[in-house]
């Protein structure tokens, strides 16, 4: 065993023997501290660290906080909690205490910041500002992680001392930079000559700045420019006016504008709003009205009173001359029709003329004098007559009637015009002339073409017509027109369709024809003026037409009444006679052949005449009713129509009446009187004529008069042949109380029928006379074919014989009649 080993052994043993250092466990320490608390040896708050291994007194913590802040200048509480190892709650509490104790500290958003820190920051900012010449506060704030407001408040206190610059709109600028930018603003503002929105200007300036500064350039806000600008405006470095804060009108511009407008207005005495708009005035009317209070604002332009006076003069002239004027032709070319109408509404002379009824305005800009319109109206009225006449002629059915009525129409209308025009003698004369001229042309086979020629003739003198009396004329006719309008319109409404109404186009066309100078006046579209004119004239024309028609109808109504009365009387008489005659036919009912002959005879004679009277008069009546002029003067008592004419006339009747009329006409060709009677009754009923029935009393009086008539005829009769028929009729009246109308062929039968009624002697006289008459008639019939020599003698002898017998026969009848009476 060497020494060293022994030594080590000993040392090891010693080491093992050595007393080990005593260590208290953590728990023990905690318990000890608690014990100390309990014993009130520690009588203050004792904090412990987050790790739970350390105790710390509040004073120590506060001291640590303060020293930390002093060291760093700016410490967040969270960092403090980390560095001190104490819970954040206690740190916050003590930090508050520390801030209260220390006025140079501030607690801002969980951070304690000392003034020293701000000083250093301000210095830094200043250094940077001097480098960059401008810094955005927002940028700084984000860098420093503080609010802009806080930074602003901090910096404001140091502006001019630590920080050498200017704070504007969230930006820091150096004075040099501000001077530069304000110079830019001044330059730009002085360079502007037209009204500009400043924000646009600022954006361009911003652009410029950015280009100059390159990428490092910080965007300068418009408000900065605006502030500089406002300051310069206030100082009078820039001249102009600012509207709504951003709309800048340089005084250069406004001066130029005013001068321009002044010169334009004084030279032209009007100015278009469009020009003003071009000059940059957005509300030209207000501008001009405030500037030239005596001017007149129109739709498109603003005019000086002198222009209105010019128009006034032109209009006055036109009215004086009884002419017309397109006010547009007087006005500058840029004026529209609305402007013209507005000017017209302001024209005093025109207004007074309108008030007096001396002028009309058509189509905005056209002024017509009353005399002119009246003139045109007269021409058109005449034209219209022709138009209507031709229209009617086309309507009429049969040629002869139409031509007759046509001729009549022209005649009547011309006369009616004369009557219309009576208030104005001069024009009336003119028209008479014209009417005569027209008649002349009519007479020479006039149709439409000739009337047109006539028109062309009339054009020559129409414009030269005297116009002075026309005012009077106008006065007379305008109330008249209105009256007609109100009164007659409803009445004539139904008839209006049948009237030839002149269309607007027609009126325009005619007006063009009368006054071909429409185009000459340089009006590109004469229709603009003519249409309203036509619209004005058309109702007037219609009214005059209606008036005339009405007068005609009144006239016709009287005539119609006359005709109807006349017709009724005629038909009554004839029909009663017919019924009387019909009764007589009953006597011959047994004898078939005689009945037929008698029926036919009656149909041919009395029945036919009744039908004819009815037809002709009804036709006239219808014509009158439809307003046509019919001359019934030559309506002779008995116009006998042939069957063809009758049917033709029957067909002209309206609707069912026509059918019935045709039935009547056909029944005339038949063999039975009864069918005719039925058809006639039917027809008459429809056409409004009463057919009287024969009653006993009436029959007697009729028979009596018939008998008297016959007696007088018989006594006056000299012709032996016709005497026989009358005597036989008279005999029938005497014996049968029947009025017999017998044709020659039926006489013998009639005579034989009388055999048992007459005395023997009388009958023989009658028989002989009848035989002699027959032979005489036979001889006469034969003589037309044979040689005259002997037959004429025979006839003469027979005639003598008959004439000898006549007094006998007459006596036969007259005595009996007298005796019977």
């Amino acid at each position: 065993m060497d020494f060293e080993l022994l030594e080590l052994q000993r040392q090891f043993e010693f080491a093992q023997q050595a007393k080990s250092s005593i260590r208290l466990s953590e728990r023990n320490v905690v318990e000890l501290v608690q014990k100390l608390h309990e014993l009130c040896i520690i009588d203050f708050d004792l904090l412990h660290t987050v790790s739970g291994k350390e105790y710390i007194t509040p004073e120590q913590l506060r001291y640590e906080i303060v020293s930390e802040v002093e060291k760093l200048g700016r410490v967040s509480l969270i960092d403090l909690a980390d560095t001190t190892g104490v819970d954040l709650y206690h740190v916050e509490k003590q930090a508050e205490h520390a801030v209260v104790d220390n006025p140079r500290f501030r607690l801002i958003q969980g951070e304690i910041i000392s003034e020293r820190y701000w000083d250093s920051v301000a210095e830094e900012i200043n250094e940077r500002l001097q480098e960059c010449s401008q810094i955005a506060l927002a940028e700084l704030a984000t860098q420093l992680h503080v609010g802009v407001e806080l930074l602003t408040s901090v910096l404001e206190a140091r502006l001019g001392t630590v920080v050498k610059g200017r704070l504007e709109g969230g930006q820091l600028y150096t004075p040099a930079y501000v001077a530069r930018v304000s110079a830019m603003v001044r330059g730009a503002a002085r360079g502007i000559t037209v009204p500009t929105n400043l924000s646009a200007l600022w954006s361009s300036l911003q652009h410029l700045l950015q280009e100059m500064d390159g990428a490092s350039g910080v965007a300068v806000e418009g408000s900065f420019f605006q502030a500089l600008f406002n300051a310069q405006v206030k100082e009078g470095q820039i001249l102009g006016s600012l509207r709504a804060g951003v709309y800048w009108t340089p005084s250069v511009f406004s001066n130029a504008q005013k001068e321009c407008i002044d010169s334009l207005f004084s030279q032209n005495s009007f100015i278009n709003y469009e020009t003003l708009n071009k000059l940059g005035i957005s509300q030209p009317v207000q501008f001009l009205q405030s500037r030239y209070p005596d001017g007149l604002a129109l739709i498109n332009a603003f005019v000086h009173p002198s222009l209105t006076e010019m128009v006034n003069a032109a209009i006055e002239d036109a009215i004086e001359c009884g002419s017309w004027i397109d006010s547009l032709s007087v006005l500058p070319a840029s004026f529209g029709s609305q402007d013209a109408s507005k000017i017209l509404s302001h024209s005093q002379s025109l207004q007074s003329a309108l008030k007096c009824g001396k002028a009309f305005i058509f189509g905005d800009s056209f002024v017509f004098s009353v005399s002119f319109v009246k003139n045109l109206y007269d021409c058109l009225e005449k034209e219209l007559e022709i138009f209507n006449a031709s229209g009617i002629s086309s309507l009429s059915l049969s040629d002869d009637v139409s031509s007759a009525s046509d001729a009549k129409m022209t005649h009547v209308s011309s006369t009616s015009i004369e009557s219309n025009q009576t208030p104005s003698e001069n024009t009336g004369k003119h028209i008479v002339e014209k009417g005569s001229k027209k008649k002349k042309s009519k007479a020479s086979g006039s149709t439409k073409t000739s009337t047109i020629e006539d028109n062309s003739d009339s054009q020559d003198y129409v414009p030269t017509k005297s116009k002075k009396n026309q005012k009077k004329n106008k006065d007379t006719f305008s109330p008249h027109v209105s009256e007609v309008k109100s009164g007659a319109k409803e009445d004539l409404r139904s008839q209006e369709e049948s009237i030839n109404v002149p269309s607007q186009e027609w009126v325009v066309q005619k007006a063009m024809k009368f006054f071909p100078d429409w185009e000459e006046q340089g009006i590109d579209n004469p229709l603009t003026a003519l249409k309203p004119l036509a619209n004005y004239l058309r109702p007037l024309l219609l009214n005059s037409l209606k008036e005339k028609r009405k007068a005609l109808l009144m006239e016709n109504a009287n005539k119609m009444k006359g005709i109807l009365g006349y017709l009724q009387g005629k038909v009554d008489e004839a029909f009663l006679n017919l019924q009387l005659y019909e009764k007589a036919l009953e006597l011959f009912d047994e004898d078939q052949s005689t009945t037929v002959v008698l029926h036919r005879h009656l149909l041919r004679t009395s029945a036919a005449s009744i039908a004819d009277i009815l037809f002709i008069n009804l036709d006239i009546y219808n014509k009158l009713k439809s307003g046509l002029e019919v001359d019934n003067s030559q309506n002779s008592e008995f116009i006998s129509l042939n069957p063809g004419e009758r049917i033709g006339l029957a067909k002209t009747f309206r609707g069912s009446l026509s059918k019935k009329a045709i039935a009547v006409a056909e029944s005339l060709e038949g063999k039975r009187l009864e069918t005719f009677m039925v058809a006639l009754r039917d027809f008459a009923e429809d056409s409004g004529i009463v057919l009287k029935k024969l009653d006993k009393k009436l029959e007697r009086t009729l028979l009596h008069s018939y008998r008297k008539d016959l007696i007088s005829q018989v006594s006056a009769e000299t012709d032996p042949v016709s005497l026989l028929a009358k005597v036989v009729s008279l005999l029938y009246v005497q014996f049968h109380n029947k009025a017999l109308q017998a044709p020659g062929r039926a006489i013998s039968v009639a005579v034989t029928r009388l055999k048992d009624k007459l005395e023997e002697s009388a009958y023989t006289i009658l028989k002989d006379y009848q035989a002699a008459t027959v032979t005489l008639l036979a001889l006469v019939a034969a003589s037309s074919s044979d040689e005259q020599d002997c037959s004429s003698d025979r006839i003469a002898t027979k005639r003598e014989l008959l004439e000898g017998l006549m007094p006998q026969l007459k006596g036969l009848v007259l005595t009996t009649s007298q005796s019977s009476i």
Partner: protein
Amino acid sequence: MSVPAESVSLVSRIHLAFDLRRGSPTMEGWDPNTKSTLTKIPLLTVKAGPRDGGAWAQRLKEEYRALIAYTQMNKSNDNDWFRISAANSEGTRWIGKCWYVHNLLKYEFDLQFDIPVTYPATAPELELPQLDGKTQKMYRGGKICLTLHFKPLWAKNCPRFGIAHALCLGLAPWLAAEIPILVDSGMIKHKDDAAPSTET
């Protein structure tokens, strides 16, 4: 204030014990405090067994130096837990005591071990004869069971590890892991408890 080393090592030991019982300890899982303690023990240089004569004497000196350092370390950390001394002059047999404080009670056991002839390639087999047959973590004759994770570490650090290392790495963790279990299961009783019970 510094954290007491003992409390930390305590925790690490529990860790270790857990690992031991699972039977899959890893070097990586070694407690950093244990590790630091281990590194503070001076390493040995001489590779010599009891049969190597002079070399063994050198080795023995180094063993003593390491033991002294370890003991001083323990003392300064208030973690003194064993007493050993060489039982023969060659220093091949060592005897002494070791103890463990559980629930404020000190459980003390006899400690003995021989230096194997193949030392330092073979680690000494530490024996706790009093606990023989009381726990599974033990070979016959009270040799504690360290094989699973002590042996590779020892083999790796041959010849630098000595007796001090074997105690630090082997016995200390074993005690920390096994004694609380043995006490709780009633396999061992504190001498103060055992005496009255025997008396009664």
